[in-house]
């Protein structure tokens, strides 16, 4: 089982990184085009992927029950912060890693920020928020 996980992780990581790069999600100008609704190509990629997945899960059965992403107190404020960061930097968590692979070394800057933010959150959560997220994660 460990080897299968290793294979899955490598194949999915490479496939996702390759796709994000080829499609254009690592290009700030194209991300700005999507997020200003002036260029709908990337938005259609995203919406199309969700639509295909809806069909896929139905075919694969059982899959719909496997995860639970509950709506909790952190859902909305977290999404606002993420959305703001996404608009400013043009990146979602995977993108800076892909950009580094593309040779865009400046991506290390938002990546460092992401790491800091991800490490700081549980500290803040423990000290100030302390709400239930419905999962084992903080």
């Amino acid at each position, binding site marked *: *089982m460990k080897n*299968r*996980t*290793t294979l*899955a992780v*490598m*194949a999915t*990581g*490479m496939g*996702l*990184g*390759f*796709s*994000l*790069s*080829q499609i254009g999600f*690592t290009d*700030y*100008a194209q991300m*700005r085009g999507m*997020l200003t*609704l002036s260029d709908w*190509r990337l938005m259609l990629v*995203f919406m*199309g*992927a969700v639509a*295909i*997945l809806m069909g896929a899960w139905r075919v*694969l059965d*059982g*899959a719909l029950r*496997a*995860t639970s*992403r509950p*709506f*909790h107190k952190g*859902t*909305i404020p*977290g999404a606002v912060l*993420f*959305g703001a*960061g996404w*608009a*400013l930097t043009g*990146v*979602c*968590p*995977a993108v800076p890693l892909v950009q580094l*692979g*593309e*040779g865009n070394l400046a991506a290390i*800057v*938002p990546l460092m*920020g992401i790491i800091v*933010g*991800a490490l*700081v959150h*549980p500290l803040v959560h423990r000290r100030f928020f302390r709400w239930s997220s419905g999962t*084992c*994660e903080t």
Partner: protein
Amino acid sequence: MTTTWPWWMGAMALAGVTVGYWLLDRRVLGVSGIMTRALNRSTTTAGEQALLSDPSALEAAMLAATRAEFGESAGLPSSPDLQDACDASSIKAPLSRPQAALFLGSLMMGGLLSSLLRGGVSVRFALPEVFERSVGGGAAGFAVMFLGGILVGFGTRMSGGCTSGHGLTGCSRLQPGSLVSTVVFLGTAIVISLLLAGRVA
């Protein structure tokens, strides 16, 4: 940067990668979660990890705990949906730290492969042109990039997912938290992007 993929090809690729992850290892794709795994020391004990790797032992342990709580006659529920939820083989051990790091490294490799296919890797260290025009350049620009990154890292952890976890996986499964999160982070990103674009005009 030129791209040749029509939108439907991109959609198929992203969906394919997500389904592939599921088919290969019954895992749900969510990059911010994988990043969390790579950063934080695992909180599961060695004993728990061992149980998670052995479905029959896990099921026996779950049954024992259920009986301890509800009495000796307690067992599996009658409805197939609930039985499914109790299926020990569907409970995955989370990725180990090395496995999570391997995933993140593979993302990088994917980007490298993509650039090589495009004619070569051009190593550079510069802010994007559109960013510089609408946000700023130089040290101030890099500071905003860093702070923006903090917002992304903090926000995705607070919300419990990102564009892959909530956006692709959660929305396609109609998970309530994901639908809300996706609408909010997309909406916020659009509003702020329009404001930034307005600065150039």
